[in-house]
């Protein structure tokens, strides 16, 4: 049997021990890194969306350079891939997938969810996007173009959803609360 077919838990223990012994990665660094990664969550992306909904200048920055827009809200982007922002309109709906692996805008949304990494999601998104959206109960009107963005290379992509009706006069904090991870990938749309 190949050494690579060892039990996964044992493999992790063994690799972590060897990396520690060789002074490459220490247990403390792993703990720190976990804390850093755990800190990224969909609330970060939601703050960006809410700001873009109330501030035209910020919206323009976000569409031009997502990473700069994230940094403007103190979201750490150092060492992160470029962030592209896809603007939904009343006639255009974006849906993000990575058919080759699981590229996900982690800096602003956190760990990719289980569904994003699943074979069913990766297969269906590019071939039957409207059927896929039905798995979430999301229905996109026939006159709205669906654009599937297959994330294959160096960018990471997030969706800027359309601000829902019924949110007139809401402040940024209140708007941010209605934006979920799925809205920023395009499997759902926010509602008031």
């Amino acid at each position: 049997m190949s050494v690579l077919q060892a039990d996964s838990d044992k493999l992790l223990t063994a690799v972590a021990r060897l990396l520690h012994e060789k002074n490459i990665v220490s247990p403390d660094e792993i703990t720190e890194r976990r804390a850093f990664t755990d800190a990224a969550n969909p609330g970060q992306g939601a703050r960006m969306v809410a700001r873009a909904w109330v501030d035209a200048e910020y919206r323009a920055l976000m569409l031009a350079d997502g990473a700069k827009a994230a940094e403007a809200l103190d979201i750490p982007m150092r060492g992160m891939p470029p962030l592209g922002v896809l603007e939904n309109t009343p006639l255009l709906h974006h849906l993000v997938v990575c058919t080759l692996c699981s590229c996900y805008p982690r800096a602003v949304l956190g760990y990719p969810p289980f569904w994003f990494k699943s074979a069913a999601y990766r297969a269906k998104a590019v071939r039957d996007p409207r059927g896929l959206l039905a798995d979430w109960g999301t229905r996109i009107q026939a006159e709205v173009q669906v654009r599937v963005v297959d994330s294959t290379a160096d960018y990471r992509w997030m969706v800027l959803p359309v601000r829902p009706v019924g949110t007139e006069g809401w402040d940024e904090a209140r708007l941010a609360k209605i934006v979920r991870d799925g809205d920023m990938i395009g499997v759902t749309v926010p509602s008031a």
Partner: protein
Amino acid sequence: MEQDLPRAHHDMGGVSKFMCDAVDTTDHVLTDFDRDVDAIRGLLGAKKVMSVDELRRGIEAIPEAEYHRMTYYQRWIRSIADNLMARGVITEAELRAALEGA
């Protein structure tokens, strides 16, 4: 149609056998194992020991039947071990010895 295409097994866009099932849209909480593997990969990337491209290559090298039996982060730790050996960061003998005590 697609059966005729020599696609690699990780290249899943539009593949019929994955089209029939509804997507499991529920939350799956990450385990300590998952988070540790994720953190090690991030650190190896930041320290230029191993790139995300190498991680992917190692995942794609897992034979198809095993690939589909494994969880997401099980594939990652296997690819990490594969790449560390390919890079000469660790040897197979060292890994075998460490596995004995794991």
